[in-house]
């Protein structure tokens, strides 16, 4: 394959990894944020955590693989983004650390104060991660100051612009909704489930308003920009999926409600990559300084080797990860005898 084909292939592969991550960790983050709010009793909180117990760690690896693949395929993208978003990523890491450790540790002590501390760490960690991811992605689309040496010239506050923050809040709200829908799907009938359904209705309103606002803002921002690929009907389909979620929740179509928020997340991401292509980092200083899949990539040889490895192992990973979801498809009961975490 030619170098250019490989560069496009790896752009698509990394996009797929990020899409998978948003879909999967999206509900993990949502569930995490809901722990202290929906769980009134200890068993309820444990039941909430146990819905994602067996799979959250595997979901998080999508992020690590996306990071690793970016490093291998587009070293300049990895270098510019990770050093440029330094403090934002540091906070994201803190969020991921305190949340990850809490799943494993919270129920290993009987002490109420111990458990409540870890519950809040799960919620705050998930919130930080969702907010920062959304902010980062919005800024990628909007462009950030990058000089001719591919070096980011802003700071943390450069990222906290209105568009970035709206992106962060919208992502957080959509993840919350996705998480609530996942919980409804995974919980056995009972008080906790009813409470979750009620919460998801309220979250749906907030998420829809924010999402439409972000859509309009994005449209205005890019209206004059003839260079980007027009994502066509994808954004409007994403809006429709999100709006339909409300109907599904009201009619108690649990599976459909979850799939429609999932579809919204996937389509949003797809539109994002279409609008970015072939750029991977847009410079707000000068479009000539943009990082593209052509000037940020590894050699043809490295991309070729990595393609062979990905071709063999990605399907294998997808198979065994899908198998675990099937394995743990049973709904979770608020009953301490059956809970693990």
């Amino acid at each position: 394959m030619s170098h250019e084909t490989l560069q496009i292939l790896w752009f698509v592969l990394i996009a797929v990894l990020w899409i998978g991550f948003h879909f999967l960790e999206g509900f993990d983050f949502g569930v995490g944020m809901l722990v202290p709010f929906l769980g009134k009793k200890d068993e309820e909180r444990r039941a909430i955590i146990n819905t994602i117990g067996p799979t959250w760690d595997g979901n998080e690896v999508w992020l690590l693989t996306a990071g690793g693949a970016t490093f291998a395929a587009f070293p300049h993208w990895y270098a510019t983004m990770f050093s440029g978003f330094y403090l934002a990523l540091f906070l994201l890491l803190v969020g991921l650390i305190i949340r990850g450790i809490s799943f494993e540790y919270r129920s290993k002590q009987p002490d109420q104060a111990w458990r409540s501390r870890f519950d809040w760490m799960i919620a705050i960690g998930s919130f930080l991660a969702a907010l920062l991811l959304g902010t980062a992605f919005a800024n990628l689309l909007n462009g950030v100051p990058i000089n001719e040496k591919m070096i980011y010239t802003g700071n943390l506050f450069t990222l906290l612009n209105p568009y970035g923050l709206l992106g962060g809040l919208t992502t957080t709200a959509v993840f919350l909704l996705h998480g609530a829908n996942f919980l409804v799907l995974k919980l056995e009938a009972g008080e906790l489930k009813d409470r979750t359904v009620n919460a998801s209705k309220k979250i749906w309103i907030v998420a829809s308003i924010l999402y439409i606002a972000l859509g309009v803002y994005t449209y205005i921002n890019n209206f004059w920009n003839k260079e980007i690929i027009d994502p066509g009907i994808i954004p409007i389909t994403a809006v429709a999926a999100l709006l339909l979620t409300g109907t599904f929740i009201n009619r108690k179509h649990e599976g459909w409600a979850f799939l429609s928020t999932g579809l919204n997340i996937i389509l949003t991401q797809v539109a994002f990559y279409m609008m970015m292509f072939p750029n991977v980092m847009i410079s707000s200083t000068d479009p000539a300084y943009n990082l593209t899949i052509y000037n940020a990539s590894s050699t043809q040889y490295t991309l070729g080797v990595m393609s062979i490895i990905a071709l063999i192992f990605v399907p294998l990973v997808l198979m065994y990860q899908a198998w675990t979801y099937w394995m743990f498809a049973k709904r979770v009961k608020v009953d301490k005898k059956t809970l693990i975490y």
Partner: protein
Amino acid sequence: MDVVYLSRWQFGLTTIYHWLFVPLTLGLGLLVAFMQTRYYQTRDETWKKMTKFWGKLYLINFAIGVVTGIVQEFQFGMNWSEYSRFVGDIFGAPLAIEALLAFFLESTFLGVWLFGEGKVSEKVHLASIWLVALGSILSSLFILVANSFMQAPPPGSFVYNQELGRMELTNFLLLIGNLKGWLFFWHTIADGILTAAVLILSISAYHLIRKQHIDVFKRSFEIATYVTIASSIMVFLGGHAMGQEMRQLQPMKLASIEAIWETEQPASFSLLTIGDLTGKREVWSIKIPYAMSFLACNNFSCEVQGVYDIQKEYEAKYGPDDYIPLMVVTYWTFRIMMGFGLILMGLGIFLYWRMQNKNWMNEKWMTWMPYALIMTYLANATGWIMTEMGRQPWIVTGYMKVKDAISPNLTVVDLWISLIGYTAVYTGLAVAMFTLMKKYATGSPEQAMHEPIDVIPSISGKK
């Protein structure tokens, strides 16, 4: 304190912290998988209790290794962006492969092992712990291959692209097949197993001297004794081979570890050397003649280069700079690592000898056994400090210096925020982990057999 200095401290601290947990994950995973296999074969309840007891400690340790590992993958780009640009074409590949092959495997099947008991067949449950152990081991292989590239880029695997100013991969198999990486791997896996064995010895001794749960801990102690002997020999052989390899590929590191100032033939091994404060001049030393030549090349007469000669050679080759690593650190960390390694090997043999006596559990030395654990952790940490400090001032030996690798956009304020932040978070993690480790390590195997207990409302002053 500039950005490079603070970034080095941050990388060092976060990496050593991560490394406190990884060896145990590597070794204990294999041993727990072994115990569960024995239960599957024999249906002996003691094996089951052992699996549960050590499995619980494994999980507590695993969790902290996972979360601190995420930082590792991010900080190359965050703090060392110029390095990432320079070697991404080569170094990124093993990292991506590590995530794809190893991280998915261990995280997915850890979920199956933890939540799957009773849901999946017993065979699948047993297979899942083996897959978790395999995942961790694969992960260490790829990261060590990546590290060994930084230590000594294997000739033939790359070219330097003048126009783009970066290193490029030309032969993937030479990169992955790098002998240095595989020696690292051997040494590391053996060290992981040794760490796990000594942990089992220490905790089992704690229970045995209290005469409790004898069935579980006597068997654990005996197995761990054999494993200690075998793995410490493996560690030693790997280390010895690495020393010889170092003479070829990183003579400066070898000379600084041994405090060899002037080139010697035959070379003597320094038992104790006191340098002056700059670490660049010898004040006083005791040496064993010929021993260094033997360690470095298996004969008593070969030449071992001294740091002054290598410094001159490097100045001619790479331009003026200080190419001598901080010798007081490399010299002493090596001695701590090797000293404790040898003591642990001796300990294994001593235990085997004492076990020939039926009454070994009541002997006086048993009361000291719980402290053996400290030696493994010190040896683990000093080993990596030596390896990485001995590479200075290079980040990729011969091609890029650490000071040129830094992210140019970072400020001292950024670094202080993250350094203080990591320290605070990691301290909190350590407190939580230590609390749980202590509880489950000193608790009964029956406690580990049951899943989490009910919540008890906090009562002030009493848990």
